[in-house]
């Protein structure tokens, strides 16, 4: 049965708006580059170039190709940061610049630094630094490790570094929940502002785990596509010929502000974040619960917190990983929650173009969700050639589509059975 929204609203109703976005993926550095590539239905996937995959059966990934860290970070600082933290810093920089968020009471309508949080996570963190330093330890001894190793590896260094740059003295932490990480980050930042703990936040996630351990680890789980002879066609969510996900990397970070404060400072409000659901399948380490039961509950939670009905949602940016299990179960979950409306709304997976950015996916897809609301175009799911009877919704196949929708849902589900769903609305 479709879910009917509860008339009751939470006690604290401060509204939260999005005022800036920053995104880095295999499609490029910057929200605009990513959006244009998505409208063109471009794949960012190619053969792995960063290292020799050797005997790993998956030899393809969505590597970021155009990132120049020194454009965002002091050269000296770059050396002290793992790549994932560099992506986080750069995406935060782009988001802060786009929003023009004033931090500091000495600036007009500035936020008190103590009321600005940074919640930025990563699924895995500084794994390339870990691999490099382990190798160094074996070769030269574990007393010869870099003194920067630990700060490169730990996940919360990303929000830590961001707070130092922008003087954000509010809550500062890093969720780690696999592929739901950055959706959790954004949802928890939303909660924090809604409850009055903070007035603004920098939230999202970053990932840079296309390394021998990362690629090899997912490959031996048989989670990855092995369509090595057709990299651009390898990530094909919902298509019958899909054979696993493709690793991506990068970052997605947004700026959230309490609505009244944002209006007061004359911010350019891009969208409103109106709902957030977080829950667990409590079922299996990697497989979704049958029928997508946990995912369905989570989508309902997001609707409930927003006080919205399923019919209000016009587009879902799906988790859509291109694995057999996810795509079929997510489709079932959408049907469970949306009933007849599931046939009317549009669903697409931008992972078909970026690859699966893991801990950065929810953040990047939040950036995409906001673009859908501001630009009135739905990004496609590319590589739709062979319909799968278990995946029979409107996935915006192969071509972007003009459409004005008022609410966008973004799904993120992670290994460990963890789920996070965000709900964005056109700002009025």
């Amino acid at each position, binding site marked *: 049965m479709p879910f009917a929204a509860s008339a009751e609203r939470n006690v604290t109703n401060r509204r939260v708006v999005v005022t800036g976005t920053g995104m880095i993926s295999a499609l490029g550095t910057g929200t605009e580059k990513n959006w244009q590539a998505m409208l063109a239905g471009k794949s960012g996937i190619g053969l792995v170039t960063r290292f020799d995959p050797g005997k790993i059966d998956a030899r393809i990934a969505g590597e970021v190709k155009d990132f120049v860290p020194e454009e965002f970070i*002091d*050269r*000296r600082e770059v*050396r*002290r940061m793992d790549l994932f933290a560099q992506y986080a810093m750069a995406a935060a920089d782009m988001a802060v610049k786009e929003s023009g968020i004033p931090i500091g009471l000495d600036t007009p309508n500035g936020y008190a630094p103590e009321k600005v949080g940074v919640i930025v996570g990563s699924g895995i963190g500084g794994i390339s630094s870990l691999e490099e330093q382990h190798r160094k330890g074996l070769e030269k001894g574990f007393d*010869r490790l*870099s*003194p*920067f190793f630990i*700060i490169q590896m730990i996940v919360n260094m990303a929000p830590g570094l961001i707070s130092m740059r922008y003087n954000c003295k509010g809550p500062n932490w890093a969720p780690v929940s696999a592929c739901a990480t950055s959706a959790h980050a954004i949802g928890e930042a939303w909660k924090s502002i809604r409850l009055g703990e903070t007035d603004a936040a920098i939230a999202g996630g970053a990932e840079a785990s296309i390394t021998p351990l990362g690629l090899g680890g997912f490959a031996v789980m048989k989670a990855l596509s092995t369509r090595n002879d057709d990299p651009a066609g390898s990530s094909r969510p919902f298509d019958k010929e899909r054979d696993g996900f493709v690793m991506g990397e990068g970052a997605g970070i947004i700026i959230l502000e309490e609505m009244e404060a944002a209006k007061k400072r004359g911010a350019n409000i891009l969208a409103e974040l109106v709902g957030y659901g977080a829950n667990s399948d409590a079922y299996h380490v990697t497989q979704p619960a049958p029928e997508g039961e946990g995912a369905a509950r989570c989508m309902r939670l997001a609707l409930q917190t927003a006080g919205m009905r399923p019919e209000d949602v016009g587009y879902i940016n799906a988790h859509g990983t291109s694995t057999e299990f996810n795509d079929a179960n997510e489709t079932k979950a959408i049907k469970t929650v949306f009933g007849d409306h599931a046939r009317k709304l549009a669903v697409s997976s931008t992972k078909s173009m970026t690859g699966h950015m893991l801990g950065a996916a929810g953040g990047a897809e939040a950036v995409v969700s906001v673009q859908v609301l501001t630009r009135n175009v739905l990004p496609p799911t590319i590589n739709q050639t062979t319909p799968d009877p278990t995946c029979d919704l409107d996935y915006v196949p192969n071509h972007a589509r003009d459409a004005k929708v008022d609410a966008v849902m973004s799904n993120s589900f992670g290994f460990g059975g963890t789920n996070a769903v965000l709900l964005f609305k056109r700002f009025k």
Partner: protein
Amino acid sequence: MSTSTIDPKVVESKVKSIIADQLGVGEDEIKPESSFIEDLGADSLDIVELVMAMEEEFEVEIPDEEAENIKTVGDAINYINTHKK
């Protein structure tokens, strides 16, 4: 290769090059009297890394209690000149 043949001028130029690389400063800013922390902006972790890099470059061992006394570029150069094998 024995390090005993290294000219003090070579030591100075190599030390400056390591510092320039690790601290991201121009070699012309690095003077013998430059303090790592006050003039070159190093923190305690940078100093650990610099000491390790110098140990590897010049095949000397710089014990922690000696490293604590190395405050300036000149201190580092002097230490290496007097302790290199």
